């Protein structure tokens, strides 16, 4: 998998200088300071969305229903091997330790020989420890209609146990740093019929698609905006969605082929943006319109 990314990176470097991207046709008024993102003036709609989100997150988030189910799944003996995740799955802080684990991922797992994000690690545990088949879990990995996959409920439970904790992706680990750098290259890679890269939408401050503000993933504040709210309950459709889902949907919006579920590329992207938000507070389960 790393070799494919390396080839993709080489191709990206050959086709286009690394880091370059088209500037919008309109000239930006004034130069943006390069370091910390300046506080952006917010329009009335943005303020209302934020007010709604805060209110719903505090008063009652239907995501908690999925958290409850996730807790049951975590503790239940399941799979061909008839063992619980609580008794067998190490999310980085010890077998069965859930508190604080979500904000310290993606991280390197020696038993898997890979850097993994939360959803990928949970799926790995379900396969390796409980005896589920990856292809079964990857068949329909995201929620839609009445269906919520088990790994979504598990990610929701695990993430909720990191509420109000500081994001702390272990960048000092050379494995994690390597994957971070891959993610940093992947966001510049342009492809698909629109020649979009992640940076096309998420590489600058002040961008928006219709009513959706687009966070700048390269800045701490933008990265935090991107990370907060996942996993999150989307009221349109009443579905619980994870950060892995969001990456899949970005690929769809760029008219890219679907990324393989829980792939190295997705982990690299999640490592890049989550680590950029290091030191900031993860507020727990999100809610979206």
């Amino acid at each position, binding site marked *: 998998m790393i070799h494919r990314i390396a080839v993709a990176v080489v191709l990206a470097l050959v086709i286009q200088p690394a880091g370059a991207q088209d500037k919008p046709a309109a000239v930006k008024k004034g130069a943006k300071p390069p370091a910390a993102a300046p506080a952006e003036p917010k329009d009335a709609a943005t303020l209302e969305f934020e007010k709604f989100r805060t209110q*719903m997150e505090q*008063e*009652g988030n*239907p995501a*908690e*229903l999925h958290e*409850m189910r996730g807790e049951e799944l975590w503790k239940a003996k399941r799979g061909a091997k008839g063992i619980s995740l609580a008794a067998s799955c190490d999310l980085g802080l010890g077998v069965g330790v859930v508190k604080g684990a979500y904000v310290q991922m993606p991280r390197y797992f020696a038993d898997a020989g890979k850097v993994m994000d939360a959803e990928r690690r949970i799926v790995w545990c379900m396969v390796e420890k409980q005896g589920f088949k990856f292809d079964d879990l990857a068949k329909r990995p995201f929620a839609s209609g*009445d269906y919520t996959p088990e790994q979504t409920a598990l990610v929701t439970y695990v993430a909720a146990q990191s509420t109000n904790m500081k994001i702390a992706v272990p960048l000092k680990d050379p494995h994690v740093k390597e994957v971070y750098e891959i993610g940093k290259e992947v966001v510049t890679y342009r492809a698909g019929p629109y020649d979009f890269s992640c940076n096309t939408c998420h590489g600058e401050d002040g961008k928006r698609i219709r009513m959706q503000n687009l966070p700048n993933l390269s800045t701490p504040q933008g990265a935090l905006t991107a990370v907060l709210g996942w996993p999150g309950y989307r009221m349109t459709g*009443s579905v619980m969605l994870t950060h892995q889902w969001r990456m899949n949907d970005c690929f769809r919006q760029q008219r890219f082929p679907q990324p393989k579920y829980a792939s190295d590329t997705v982990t690299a992207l999640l490592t890049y943006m989550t680590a950029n938000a290091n030191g900031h507070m993860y507020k727990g389960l999100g809610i979206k319109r």
Partner: protein
Amino acid sequence: MASYPIRIRALLKGDVTSITAIVSHPMETGIRKDDAGKTIPAHYIQLLTVEVNGKKVMESQLNTAVSTNPVFNFKIKGAKVGDKVVVSWVDNTGEKGSGETTIIPG
């Protein structure tokens, strides 16, 4: 039948207890159609009841205007920390659900 969880939080601040109940329920209106064009049958909560220490404090007649997985919040007076709060519902198919919690300081 699948069990429908309810998450209830009952927080006492001063003399007012704020009760939040997140109820899991599809709340199907009965006027939607599936991809095959068949009408999805109505399936929604008709009666929601709240009891504190066995005494009914609120009864609500719901209809199809209420969303899927609804979140309810209401405030009551005269309760104290440790009181038992039970939220229960009956839907149009006769299915029932309930959950409980105790009041804690908010």
